[in-house]
């Protein structure tokens, strides 16, 4: 009888019920909230479902002293092996390969000045950097947190894995959460900083872009940006490589794999492991609250600076070449969500004013800009 009760009691000590703490319960609720947001509200479901479920996986309580090798932070566990792609930073470049293979840079090539909007929106990163320093974070931690303002999950994970690995879980979840909330955060700011007259500006359709230009773009883009910021090579190299696969016309199969199967596989693994890395013991800290606050600030600064920069830019442009400031928000690289918001808001004020293709210019420039900004931070602070 003793033998049975002893074994049952030992078994009980290994169950989630015996090891549950308030932190785990809170995180499980957060995971369920993410899944609800994704399924019911359709907020970035491709990201929030894997992350939300990952949070559930990472927060099922267990006896960490039993040496079961099941936790994501236990070396040799299956989850730890999968997490290696996040901690060593090789998932994000693979995602960038896919982004490159599925992105049409025509809008940007046709109207290169839109690249500057993508650059201006990166002020969100550095604005948040200054706020993070004021809150007492060390420069490397501040840099890792500030990159949330780039609105680019893979870039945020890549940079935080290099500058502040201990904050990576919170940074990644914060970045993806705010990307999902772009439709909520950006429109009020866009309305606040623009007049009705500005919202009605109709932009000229861009010229057609030749195949040769599309092929030259990734090659010149890689060489120019990476000669300036070599530390951006892993992200920019893969981004432009993916784009060349797409545009060169002779590697259609590779481009399809990169943009579909490969991206899907890596997104599943990335989302799930990032979610699982939010173990309550590591995640529920004062720093996490600060990180979420700073991420919010970064998004606000980035979106606002994009819109304000267009207004400033318009002062120097002739009347027929004015840019609708509603595409300024698209300078943050939440592709294509922020461009869609520009389009929807434009249509709200003039049902014949389609801004989507114009907004895609700064949107993809934002991807390049945030990767360059990450490279700069890595160069300065690593």
């Amino acid at each position, binding site marked *: 009888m003793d033998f049975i009760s002893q074994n049952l009691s030992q078994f009980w000590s290994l169950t989630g019920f015996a090891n549950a703490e308030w932190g785990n319960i809170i995180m499980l609720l957060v995971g369920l909230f993410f899944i609800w947001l994704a399924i019911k509200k359709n907020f970035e479901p491709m990201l929030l479902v894997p992350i939300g479920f990952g949070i559930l996986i990472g927060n099922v309580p267990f006896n960490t002293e039993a040496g079961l090798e099941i936790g994501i932070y236990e070396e040799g566990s299956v989850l730890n092996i999968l997490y290696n792609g996040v901690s060593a930073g090789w998932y994000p470049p693979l995602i960038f390969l896919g982004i490159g293979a599925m992105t049409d840079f025509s809008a940007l090539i046709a109207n290169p000045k839109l*690249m500057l909007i993508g*650059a201006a929106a990166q002020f969100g990163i550095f604005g948040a950097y200054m706020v993070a320093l004021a809150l007492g974070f060390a*420069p490397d931690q501040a840099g890792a947190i500030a990159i949330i303002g780039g609105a680019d999950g893979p870039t945020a994970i890549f940079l935080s894995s290099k500058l502040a690995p201990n904050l990576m879980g919170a940074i990644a979840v914060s970045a993806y959460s705010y990307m999902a909330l772009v439709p909520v955060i950006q429109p009020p700011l866009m309305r606040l900083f623009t007049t009705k007259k500005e919202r009605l500006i109709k932009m000229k359709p861009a010229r057609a872009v030749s195949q040769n230009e599309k092929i030259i*773009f990734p090659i*010149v*883009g890689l060489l120019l940006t990476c000669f300036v*910021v070599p530390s951006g090579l892993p992200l920019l190299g893969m981004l432009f490589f993916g784009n060349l696969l797409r545009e060169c016309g002779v590697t259609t199969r590779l481009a399809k794999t990169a943009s579909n199967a490969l991206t899907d596989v890596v997104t599943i693994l990335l989302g799930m492991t990032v979610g699982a890395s939010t173990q309550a013991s590591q995640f529920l800290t004062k720093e996490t609250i600060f990180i979420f606050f700073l991420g919010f600030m970064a998004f606000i600064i980035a979106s606002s600076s994009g819109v304000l920069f267009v207004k400033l830019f318009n002062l120097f442009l002739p009347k027929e070449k004015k840019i609708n400031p509603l595409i300024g928000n698209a300078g943050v690289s939440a592709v294509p969500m922020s461009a869609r918001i520009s389009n929807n808001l434009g249509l709200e004020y003039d049902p014949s004013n389609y801004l989507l293709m114009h907004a895609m210019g700064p949107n993809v420039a934002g991807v390049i800009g945030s990767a360059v900004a990450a490279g*700069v931070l890595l160069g*300065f602070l690593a």
Partner: protein
Amino acid sequence: MKKNLILMLMMAMVCAFGASAQSRGSLRINEVMIQNTPEGVADEYGAHVAWIEIFNTNFAPIEISSIYITNDLSKPTLYPVPLGDVKTKMPKRQHVLFFADGQPKKGTFHTNFVLTPGQENVIAIYDADGITLIDKVVVPATLLPGQSYARKADGSNDWEIRDGSEELYITPGSANKIKDENHKIKDFANNDARGFGLTGMAMGIVFSALLVLCLSFYALSKIGSLVSRLNKLRAHGAPAEAKVRDVTQDTGEEIAAIAMALHDHFDAHDQESTVLTINKVRRAYSPWSSKIYNLRQVPDRTPRR
């Protein structure tokens, strides 16, 4: 076929150069002690003998078996580092110690020569061909017992004599300059506490990178359109100075004048009301403002049962 072969050979050469750039040329003699003392590092047998530290400056592992270590430049292949020892694979940016005790049978890291106190000692490492000199150092004769001759920092060009004091510490098998903090971070924390400096520099770099890209594509599009125009003209044999009229730029008045002229010239009309009305038609449609590019799903209009 021949062309392909030449191309492949060229590619192989390029790859070989690339590979050699990552190879043993990046090994450096990093620190040397001629007269070890009981306070110094001991070998695996507990003996305090002279030692030579080699450093891998690369950010990739290097296999050092079959390189040569010598203290006599006339005999570059004096001590070949044996094959078959897993410890000869040096991890990136790591150090390895060779004990110069003249007893190679004690193990891979025991050389077959000794270093002589009180005189200059030349130490060199050669690549596997026994000809290519990888690194060489002349250890001064003034080195006292317990002192080492070391690079000021790993792989740097400046050397110094170290006596084991607080500042001039001896570091067999580890970094010559121990990093207890990240200097970059410390610099930024001290000199740019509010982040204005980094923000200014970083935004400048981001803007410059994208501005360069932007200007390049303006230039490329200009060159592209010039080339295509020249090609078109060449193909059609038209004079180079011919200009293509952009009909969309014509005003309504011009179109009306042309229409009237044509009407007068051809007299193509029957008796009509003689009232000519020409309105400029605005073409609102463009692929850029088409609904089909709005990423909205086309609603399913099939009746449901």
